[in-house]
Each structure stands twice: as structure tokens, then as C-alpha cells.
């Protein structure tokens, strides 16, 4: 896993500098982050607290009635460790009200709805508190499409999007995120007993090694199989990356004019900042 080893001191400096710079350039001083109790959102909050000061980090806890008690406890542990601002919004009433009209909805629909419900609350609090929504999606889940489009994938500024899950853990240890959060089984906590690795069918250690060769080192699928990776695993992961490409891009626009947004109308995101 050497290729994935971070120089944590440097990366910490780059990412806290990034948060400070991108938030202030956009005319803000504060961020709003949804805390799930997991390591990704915990690390985002730790980095933001260091970049902006704990008084300018607002953590929003948004449990659903089936969320595990542990998740809420761990989120509170992050709030207490950092001394950041926090508030809790229970999403059960709105989610349940909606599904009362669709009682047959499966777990995936319910899980996506919860993720999007949380997104609307975060962006509402972005307006209410004058803070940018801080992202918590890591590179592994972005590449696999293991996230809800316009749900947990939505944010204004994401410090973790170029770190694989195993790198998130390395950096979280370095920043002294409580060990119970770093070392526990990752879960989207969308239904009782769910874990990422059981749902995906492989471990983050395995897939991060594969993805870093595929993406960062530009190995072809055939090269990976020649390297000794299981063919079904390689093809399965590659298919997930392909199938989720749409989640990593803006909606496709039918071209009509001489300059189409993001096609031949190309400005940096930091345009005018």
C-alpha cells in the first residue's frame, strides 16, 4: 500500500490551506458540515476546525429514527472534541411523511431520500448560517459511485475528494480523530446492520489498491489482471467506475449555441474570486 501512503503533515497543510482559501475566496468565513458519526465527515470537520477555527464550523446532525445510536454518539464525540457549533435535525418526520404515500419503496429509495433530505437541510443552513457546505465524499466512493447524487455527494467545497478511503483513515489518525470512529466498520447507516464493505463485496484496502493503479498509475484492465488481481474483481470495479461517470459530471446539455456551458464556455470555478 506504499503508493497510498500520505505524508500527513504536508497533506494536512495543503487541505487546511485549501479550505481556508476556497471558503474565503467565495466570500464566506464559515462552513456547515453534516456529521454522520463516520470517519469521512469527522475528518472534514477536524480539517475545517483547524483551518477556520472551531467557532466557524457548524456541525449538523441529521439522524433518522433507525440510525444507530452509536452514529449519533460518535458525531457528538466529534463536536465535543473540537468544540465546534452543532445542532440536530431529526429527519424522520419528513422522510416518513413522504413514504406514507409510497409504502412499497425499497431500502435504496429510502436511503437516497434520506441522503437528499439531509442535503436540503445542509443547504438551508448554509443560507441560514452564512456558511459553505463542506463536502465529505472521498475518492473511493466518488469513483465507485457509492453515494447519492444530489445527496451526500452535494457540497460547495470538498477537501477529501482526492483521498482514497484508506488515506482518509491515515489522515484521520494523524489528526487524532477519536479511534472509535477511525477504526470502526464504515457504514452509510441507511438501514440497520448495513456496512459498506458487505454491500460492495470487497474491502477498502483491496479496492483502493486497485483504483490507485487504474486511475493514478494508468494501468489498463489487462495490466491489472496480469498483475494478479482477480479478473472478476477488476472487471466489476471497472464497471462501477463506468456506470457512475454521470454522477461525477454536470447533467449533459444538448448543444445548440456557439458556446455551451462547460463545453466551449470554459471558465475556472474560481472565476472572479
Amino acid at each position, binding site marked *: 500500500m506504499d*503508493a*497510498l*501512503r*500520505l*505524508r500527513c503533515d*504536508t497533506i494536512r*497543510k*495543503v487541505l487546511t*490551506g*485549501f479550505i481556508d*482559501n*476556497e471558503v474565503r475566496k467565495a466570500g464566506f468565513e464559515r462552513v456547515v458540515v453534516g456529521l454522520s458519526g463516520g470517519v469521512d465527515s469527522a475528518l472534514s470537520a477536524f480539517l475545517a476546525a483547524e483551518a477556520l477555527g472551531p467557532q466557524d464550523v457548524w456541525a449538523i446532525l441529521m439522524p433518522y429514527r433507525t440510525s444507530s445510536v452509536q452514529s449519533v454518539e460518535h458525531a457528538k464525540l466529534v463536536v465535543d472534541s473540537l468544540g465546534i457549533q452543532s445542532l440536530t435535525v431529526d429527519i424522520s418526520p419528513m422522510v416518513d411523511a413522504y413514504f406514507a404515500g409510497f409504502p412499497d419503496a425499497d431500502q435504496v429509495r429510502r436511503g437516497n431520500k434520506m441522503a437528499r433530505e439531509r442535503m436540503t437541510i445542509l443547504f438551508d443552513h448554509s443560507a441560514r448560517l452564512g456558511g459553505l457546505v463542506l463536502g465529505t465524499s472521498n475518492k473511493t466512493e466518488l469513483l465507485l459511485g457509492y453515494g447519492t447524487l444530489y445527496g451526500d455527494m452535494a457540497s460547495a467545497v470538498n477537501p477529501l475528494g482526492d483521498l482514497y478511503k484508506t488515506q482518509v483513515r491515515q489522515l484521520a489518525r494523524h489528526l487524532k480523530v477519536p479511534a472509535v470512529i477511525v477504526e470502526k466498520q464504515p457504514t452509510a447507516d441507511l438501514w440497520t446492520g448495513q456496512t459498506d464493505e458487505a454491500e460492495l463485496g470487497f474491502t477498502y484496502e483491496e479496492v483502493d489498491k486497485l483504483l490507485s493503479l487504474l486511475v*493514478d498509475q494508468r494501468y489498463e484492465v489487462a495490466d491489472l489482471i496480469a498483475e494478479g488481481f482477480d479478473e472478476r474483481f477488476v472487471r466489476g470495479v471497472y464497471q462501477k467506475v463506468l456506470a457512475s461517470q454521470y454522477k461525477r459530471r454536470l447533467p449533459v446539455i444538448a448543444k445548440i449555441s456557439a458556446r455551451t456551458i462547460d463545453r466551449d*464556455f*470554459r*471558465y*475556472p*470555478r*474560481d*472565476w*472572479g*474570486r
Partner: protein
Amino acid sequence: MRRLRLAVAQIAPVLGDVEKNLALHEKVAHEAISRSVNLLVFPELSLTGYFLKDQVPSVALTDRAPALDILRNLSNRVAMVIGFVEETPGHHFHNAAAYLEGGEIRHIHRKVYLPTYGIFDEQRYLAAGSRIRAFDTALGRMTILICEDMWHPTAAAIAAWDGAEIILCPSASPGRGLGQAEPFQNSSTWQRVIGAYGDLFTCFVVYANRVGYEDGACFWGGSEVVGPTGASLAKARYLEEDFLVVELEEGALRRARIANPLLRDERPDLTLRELQRIMRVHDAGEPDGGARG
């Protein structure tokens, strides 16, 4: 060359805001003057920022632009290398660096090698330069190579053969890749390149990189001045603004060239002959494999 005090301004330009960047240049130039600096080197595209994309025409200046008057005037007190987007009379846009001295622009280098791969997209927006020249200044003979130009050893070789005593390299290098050395994979390559050029071309090499963030990319700083034995004379901080001041001494150049007379022993005639042969093969349409013949 004469003994001189050189400074590198490791700044974070504001993307697309020439006015703010001019004010920053002015402020840094006054700092340099107060510290008796003779030559002040700014990073690549220091007046405009780097990832401009479609803003390129909006921030471009001609070499006669009144916007540059303040810096031109300040160059009576400190010579400067500044980075800007140059618009030609034919409305081509170049990633350019100007050497200002004695109240005027003495030399403009237009970046020859425009990176268009990975994170870079320069050829989409910019025209490539077609000259690499050494030029005389009151302080010595110099060549400017902008960032990617340095990743082509032939560019530095031309500079050395043309008599450059100092290679000035304004850069806007975004950090990428996890490497063995701090802070990024590409920064360790840079450090090897400037060290090797100092050593092999027995000249001073001034690497002026920027800091700051654009669209999430982080410019890593670490500006450095290397002497004609390849030894590092001064190095700026990583990831933070800095102002690097270093004395360059003519004697060091002389001693290095006595100890290591590599330039004396160069064979430009041989190089030219072999290049002509290789070019004939290229012209015959076998650019990849044919050169072996």
C-alpha cells in the same frame, strides 16, 4: 556577470485580476528596493494567475500597455521579471515573461513548450513561442525559460550555448502525486532538474514558483536558487508566500567553469549535424522509429 543581489517573489496572484496583481507587484518591488535587490523575479503569469481558461483574452496586455508603466518605472530602481499574457498585434496570446530594466522592457520570452496534458490545457488557449535566446542586461547575460520549457533539456542547452550565466525560470507548478520527497511527486522532479542544470550547464538557475490555490489545485512554492555547481544557494518555504534573497557572485561561475569545463568541450557542430540527420528522417515520415538508422 557582476555580483548581484537577487530576490524571488513567491506570491499568490489573484486569478484573473490584473489590477490587484499589479498592486501586489508594486508592493513587492518596493520591498525589494528597500533591501537593495538588483533583480526581482516573479512567478509565471504573475500578473494574471494561471488556470485562466477563457479569461485569457480578457487579461491580455500588449508590450506597450499603460498598465505596465508603473512596473516599467520601478525597473529604474530594481530589474524585474514579470509574467503576463501577451497579446500580439495579430491577436495571438502568449504565456510570456518580460525582463524590465532601466525603465523599459529589455526582453520578452514567450513560453515555447505549452503543456496540454493531465491538469494542463495551455495549447487550447495560448500560442507557442518560437525563440529561446540569451540576452544581455546590466547585471549579466540571462535566458528566461518558463516552467514547462525547463522540462526540455534542449531549451536549457540552447540557453547555455548562447552564453547565459543565469537561467531564470518563472513557474506556476501545481503539486500533484505522492512522492518520496516533500511535498509532491512533481516537486522532487523539479528539484532534481534545477540542480542538474546548474551542474551540467555550469550556470545559476533561478526557480521562481508561486503559491496559492486555483480550482483546488495547490501551487507548492519551494522556489530555489542553484549555483553553477548544482548546489542549492537558497530555498523558499513550501506552500507559503515567501521572499527569497540571495547574493550571486561572479567568482562562483568562473570557478565552476574552471573545475568543470563542460561548456568549453561542447560540440554544437556535432549536435547540429546529428539533429539535421534526425530531422531528415522525421521529414521522411518516420518520427518514432526511423532515427535509429
